[in-house]
């Protein structure tokens, strides 16, 4: 009887899962499989029905291209620097607004605003604020007497990566804050009170209690941000199109696929991006022991 029931349960479970599985097949598995398949062909975008299989040539073509490695270097620089800054800032701000300060609710809502603005809009907005002739930032610097002519923030090869990282930090620190704040609120108040009663100094409480308990939350937040940053496209593309100074791996793939119409090579580049992201994700999960930490916390 119970066996029968279990079987019926399982059947019901599959039936409830079916719509989701079908949706996943259609919107995720199918396009992914198609991209993967095309990466082994010499197809072109203007006539994708006409192609032949050419093995791993496209993959070799991509890793033999100097521009690809520039794009990978840019992507990694961007990811490491921006996520590091966002984590530190996010932790700091989360600790601040976790305190019972007056108007806390308002501050929490306000801090989310940059994250709610679409990337393209935010980037365009910053582009104008950083404009060398009309930008508000240069106006402020000039009126303070620090410079006498506007700095071309987005034209200067040595500044533009910094600008991209800055805008990303501005935009996604709220996301970090939110996730870390959620982690902070999971820490039982009694532990902190007990530590306080025992006369443990604040920095020690932070270092030995808060930080270890926050580790899973920070780990998940970092993982999300890293995966997001590794496939970053919009910000750099809006600011500098396909300029090599901030070209990311995703922009490289789009460039080959759309601008050059090379469906095969573009698909191979996309697959490399996918492998890169997957590799880094596994690395982070392994290093931070996220799978186990999550288990412990639960």
């Amino acid at each position, binding site marked *: 009887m119970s066996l029968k029931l279990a079987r019926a349960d399982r059947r019901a479970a599959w039936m409830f899962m079916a719509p989701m599985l079908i949706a996943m097949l259609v919107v995720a598995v199918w396009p992914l499989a198609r991209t993967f398949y095309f990466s082994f062909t010499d197809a072109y*975008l203007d006539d994708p029905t006409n192609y032949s299989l050419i093995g791993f040539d496209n993959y070799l073509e991509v890793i033999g291209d100097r521009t690809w490695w520039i794009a990978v270097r840019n992507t990694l620089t961007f990811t490491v620097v921006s996520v590091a800054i966002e984590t530190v800032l996010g932790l700091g701000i989360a600790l601040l607004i976790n305190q019972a300060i007056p108007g806390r609710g308002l501050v929490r809502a306000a801090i989310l605003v940059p994250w709610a603005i679409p990337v393209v809009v935010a980037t365009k907005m910053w582009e104008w604020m950083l404009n060398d*002739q009309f930008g508000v930032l240069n106006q402020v610097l000039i009126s303070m007497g620090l410079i006498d002519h*506007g700095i*071309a923030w987005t*034209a*200067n090869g040595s500044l533009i990566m910094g600008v991209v990282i800055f805008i990303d930090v501005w935009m996604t620190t709220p996301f970090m804050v939110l996730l870390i704040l959620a982690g902070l609120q999971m820490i039982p108040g009694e532990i902190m009170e007990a530590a306080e009663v025992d006369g443990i100094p604040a920095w020690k409480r932070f270092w030995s209690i808060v930080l270890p308990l926050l580790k899973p939350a920070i780990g998940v937040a970092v993982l999300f941000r890293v995966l997001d940053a590794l496939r970053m496209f919009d910000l750099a593309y809006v600011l500098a199109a396909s300029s090599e100074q901030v070209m990311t791996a995703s922009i490289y793939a789009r460039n080959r696929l759309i*601008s050059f119409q090379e469906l095969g090579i573009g698909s191979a580049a996309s697959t490399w991006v996918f492998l890169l992201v997957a590799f880094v994700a596994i690395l982070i999960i392994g290093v931070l022991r996220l799978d186990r930490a999550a288990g412990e916390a639960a």
Partner: protein
Amino acid sequence: MSLKKLALGASMLLALAAGTARADTVSVFCGATDYDLCVKAADAWKAKTGNEAKINKMPAQLDDAIPLYQQLLAAKSSDVDVLFLDVIWLGMFKNNLLDIKAMVPQAEQDAHFKSTLGAGDINGQLIAMPAYMDVGLMFYRKDLLEKYGMQPPKTWDELATQAKEIQDKERAAGSKDMWGYTWQAKSYEGLTCDAIELIASNGGGTIIADDGKVTIDNPAAAEAIEKAKGWIGTISPEGVLGYDEEASRAVFEAGNSVFHRNWPYVWGTSQGGGGPIVGKVGMMPLPVGKVGEKSSGCLGPMYFGVNKYSAKPELAAEFVRFITGPDMQKMRAIEGAYNPSISALYTDPDVLAKLPFLKDTQPAFADSATRPSGYTGTSYNRVSQAFYRAVHDMLTGDEDVKAGLAKLSARLDKLKESR
């Protein structure tokens, strides 16, 4: 009321109803910079035929329309019937554009410049009709040149000297934000145009010759790029390295630039809307590098073509005929300073009254700088991107000009072949 009159009235009503029933709508893509002129053309079409043309604005940076078109055409969508096309895209989209040869009378086709029409006539199929010749032009502050007693410059060196002098004097007189010359040197298709103009007018050729030989590695080209590099930070703000058409136009139209290189549409935008430079702008063909060379405005004829998957191909072709026809090209020339692709308009008194230099540009079209999309075909984007990136690196100083040109030349040898 007699029965006869009643019948007449009824039949008239019927005819009217039939007329409205026949009136139809086509959907059209138009460039962001000539949107107003397209709307005007659509209004004229409606007045003439009763049919409506719905104008859709394209992205400000024209190349961003490529993925849009690709999605639309790959899905065989009939949402937009008429597509606005850059000459360098024709090879890319040729399989998705309708052959309209039979729908456009031969005389109408022959009215256009032969080579311009020819670019839209691929393998005996007419896939697009020329709408106008976009060509790089020099805009300048007439009032400032007069103030300092100068004539419009003939060579790039003269331009640089004048720009420097006016810029310095204007700054001393209190216009602290004044610059001598604004142009486009962002790493994008526009830089290919700006650079090819400088190089060709200096006798340095057009990157790849018609027979496919890569010609870019030559002393005249190096000299032209060195010259432009010297402008940045002196007469041009460092920001030009990140400017596209619109960003540089903003500086000029704010009154902060003496000279400005752009496409003809700036004539319209700088004179409308009550900006600070209304009535103070002059326009001329681009200067030359050396005396005896030809002014080499980058030539980009623009086209209209019919989406192969359109549900109303006849009507769409009808609209293409109308908007590329003589009346609309004349309207564009007079109101927006667009150079027509119909040769007869170059002797039209109304057009010449507005654009006196057109008389000289017609013969010059044969010599003007054409981007090497003819030879490179489907590889054009690769070639152009390799070129503008290399030039951008030279202008920023990340790459030595002579060594950079040699490297570029070797790269282009590999990239140039169409498939």
